[in-house]
């Protein structure tokens, strides 16, 4: 008989009963998105690592309060996001995110001229700088929805607000960005 990998509800049930190996599997599955979430909210790699690590420890200890049948990922991200925002508040700063240079052209893409590539890069930097000027609430909604590409529902859970609040924060954030970029 071949052992099948355990699905998520089984892993959660085992972890609730104190099986740390089951929790290890969950940590490995979600550590990437947890770290990215903490990083885009704080902008600082050391804070992001601490926030993600503390988030997984706190989530394990809070498993008794996790509602069976609910999706685990947004619940975990909410705990990690809270940790990251607490660190940001105590440090009284949000460090600026940096853009990654686009190094590979996709097959079939026209090769941009050096001037066009520079203009494109400048406009991306202006857009990111404008996002970094947003208030914390608007920044966090934009970061979760667009940088992490979470759904509106997941963004709402991760930020601990209603879906309607996410919609209105995003609408206001986009308005501010248009004003700043015009």
């Amino acid at each position, binding site marked *: 008989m071949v052992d099948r990998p355990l699905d998520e509800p089984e892993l959660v049930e085992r972890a*609730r*009963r*104190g099986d*740390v190996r089951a*929790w*290890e599997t969950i*940590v*490995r599955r979600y*550590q*990437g998105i*947890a*770290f*990215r979430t903490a*990083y*885009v909210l704080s902008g600082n*790699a*050391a804070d*992001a*690592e*601490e926030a*993600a*690590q*503390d988030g*997984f*420890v706190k989530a*394990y*200890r*809070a*498993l*008794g309060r996790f509602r069976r049948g609910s999706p685990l990922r947004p619940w975990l991200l909410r705990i990690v996001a809270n940790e990251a925002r607490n660190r940001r508040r105590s440090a009284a700063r949000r460090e600026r*995110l*940096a*853009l*990654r240079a*686009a190094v590979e052209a996709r097959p079939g893409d026209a090769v941009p001229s050096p001037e066009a590539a520079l203009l494109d890069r400048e*406009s*991306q930097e202006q*857009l*990111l700088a404008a*996002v970094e000027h947003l208030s914390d609430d608007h920044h966090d909604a*934009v970061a979760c929805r*667009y*940088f992490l*590409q979470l759904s509106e529902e997941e963004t709402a859970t991760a930020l601990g607000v209603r879906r309607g609040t996410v919609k209105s924060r995003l609408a206001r954030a*986009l308005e501010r*960005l*248009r004003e700043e*970029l015009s």
Partner: protein
Amino acid sequence: MSELERRLLALEIDVPEAPDLAAAVLARVEGRPFPWRRTVVLAIALLAVAIAAAFAVPQARTSILRFFHLGGAAVERVETLPPAVERSGLGRPTSLAGARRAVGLPLALPPLDRKPARAYVLDDAVATVLLRAHGQPVLLSEFRSTDEAYLKKLVGGSTIVEPLRVRGEPGLWIEGAPHTLTYVDRSGRFRERTILIRGNVLLWLHGPLTLRLEGMLTKAQAFRLAGQIR
């Protein structure tokens, strides 16, 4: 979707590579009772403390039954452990070189196929790295040996404290029931935060350092690992 939303989705943020968090998380949750069993135990403990407080004669501190001093650490056996919190972190994450700079001392390590990519520094006084030995996560903490204790451990009556020697240097093996830990930072400030430690601990002197292994290793396993650390 608007053009602005498309541009936001297309932004490529430079996120550093995600560290492997599993070993550090496991080291912090391993050996802990299940969350609700701990809650019940905590509730009973709190009730016991409340009852004791209601009948207690005020006392400045619990009597010390026995005292051990080793390099930068002191271990006191007391009648009653003080209230303690679960450990909330290992300190600020940094590189091995960063940890060496922060504590101002070279760090000793066992021979490893791959050196730990990360170390943790607590108040520029205690450097900790996470190792794996005998299939389990083990914390190796290092701090300067002085006449004054950087770390103070309080142990209750059911904890074993056994003096021994590691490669000829004095050491202590602490095994059994949970014990507590308080520490002094590099500037000499005494940190009142008392942390509950649930694993077994081997403490020993190593040149200018006091080393500390913490995990669920047996005495023989910890002793073998300590003997390899240079």
